[in-house]
């Protein structure tokens, strides 16, 4: 059963079939766990998928729930307490969908900047929760953070182009 979401009158709202809604995040999580760390550890595929679905649906509630679900599964696969990625991706999902409802995020430049920005937001929330609540000794490196943000933004633009094929107009 297709799920539909509505928002602003002039901005198009998309929906996705259930196989895509479930399969794409799972595939992203699987690839993130399987691909060789040496090369792909800088990328955060689940984050890119979260941003894409949130921007396409333009509904804050579905965006934050998608982010929370993907983040929590990502937490379950890792060694740390469950919830760190969940919180970070909830915030990103909410922010990206809220932004998607107000701005046109269909063009390449906007997508690049939005992904870069939300990568940094995600990192900031993750670090805050990890250090503040879980007491992990994470150190933030601006150079590495921005480099990873740029790499993710580039990959995101390409990935969104592929995922656009699965969009269904409401």
């Amino acid at each position, binding site marked *: 059963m297709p799920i539909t979401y509505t928002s602003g009158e002039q901005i198009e709202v998309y929906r996705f079939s259930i196989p895509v809604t479930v399969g794409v995040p799972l595939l992203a999580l699987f690839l993130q*766990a399987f691909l060789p760390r040496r090369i792909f550890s800088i990328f*955060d595929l*689940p984050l890119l998928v979260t941003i894409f679905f949130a921007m396409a649906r333009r509904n804050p*509630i579905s965006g934050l729930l998608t982010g929370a679900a993907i983040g929590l599964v990502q937490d379950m*696969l890792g060694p*740390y307490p469950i919830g760190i990625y969940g919180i970070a991706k909830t915030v990103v999902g909410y922010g990206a969908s809220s932004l998607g409802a107000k701005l046109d995020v269909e063009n390449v430049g906007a997508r690049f900047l939005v992904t870069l920005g939300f990568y940094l937001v995600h990192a900031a929330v993750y670090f805050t929760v990890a250090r503040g*609540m879980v007491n992990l000794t994470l150190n933030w*490196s601006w150079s590495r953070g921005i480099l990873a943000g740029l790499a993710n933004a580039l990959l995101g633009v390409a990935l969104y182009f592929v995922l656009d094929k699965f969009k269904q107009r409401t």
Partner: protein
Amino acid sequence: MESVLGRYRNLTILVGVLFLQVLGLAVQVKRSADTENTRLIRIWAVDLITPFERGLVWAQNSSNNLWHNYFYLRGVRSENRQLEDKIEKMRLNQVRLSEDAEQAHRLQLLLGFKEQFIEKTVAAQVIGSSGSDLSRSIYIDKGSKQGIEPDMAVITAGGIVGKVLHVYPSTSLVLMINDQSSGVGAMLEKSRLQGVLHGTPDGELRLERVMSDETVVAGDTVLSSGGDQIFPKGLPVGTVSKVSVGKELFLNIQVKPAADLSRLEEVLVVTEKREREPVAESGSRVRAADILAQRLPSVPDKLAVVAGATPGTSGASVTAGKGMTASAKPVPNGAGKPVAATGTVPAAKLAGDAQASGVGLKKVAQKTAGGESPAVLSAPSNPRSTPAANADAPKATSNPAASPAKPAADGAKLSSAPPNPQPPATEDSPH
């Protein structure tokens, strides 16, 4: 109130979802045993992802095996020859090292040391990682069904990898040593300085708690100290790559891991280790000087000393199993290169080698410059022959007079040594 909630519906839900997650996180952190609290949902998530990983790894390995084992066999014969040569050289080294190890065991016994030995390991394949750049952990394809338990050490031939963190029925999550939440008791091989090895957020390793007035140089080997009760003592951890003065009077020591942690494919999980004191085996050994004396024509009456006068030695049959002094000067190995001969070679090995090389045991004994040694004559044949002993045997028997004083000294040490070397403590069980 309802109108306020309705107006800020999205924000309210966001706050609600975040609050629930923060609450869940706080519960986990407070109890600090999230393995129990969240075990079930972790199992679900792992069961969801790992079958695909297993399938993909299996397909990848199958295609690799098909190619490498059936199609791409170019140069295998020459490689085989090279490897055989290498094995022969390594056997020579093994004889020397086993003597060193025996000596170390004796010294440990004297000092009352207890040490941990790896009794059993399970080989496992790496099937994935946690999928996060901020944590360093891997999934292996062995779990509780194969006897894996939390806090077991995970190693490779290169060095230590990490410890088992979460165990599921057929998979396990391994926290690697370069994760920032891991800690390993480590020490420097040469100086024996001990410290704690921690991972950094960048995935590097740092040896902490080493005072800044100590001398540590790049290139020093780091071993596990055994203090963490997870990794047995003496396993390779890495090498010091950079040293600088850190905070609070401690050195900042960067360590390069011995195992390539970013390219792991197969690992060994230490499922069983035993703490024991080195075993002293009963009986005593004949001094090398006495054996030399047996062979010297000028001192024939020494035989009596060997046969009866030595306390705790019951004549020839006992002597047969003891170490026998070999020449200490370099002898050629199979490759024609000189190899420093070890102080002692087990007599049984020597006898077996003599037979294996087509020379009867008695003939070997007859080759000795002096009278026949009853010890050698009564030695049982040993089918386990090594090229090392093959190389040593003629030297040991044909030129006894040339044997210098050092073997005699070794022989003196041997008088309190166990007659039979201990079997290897490691028993690998292939999966």
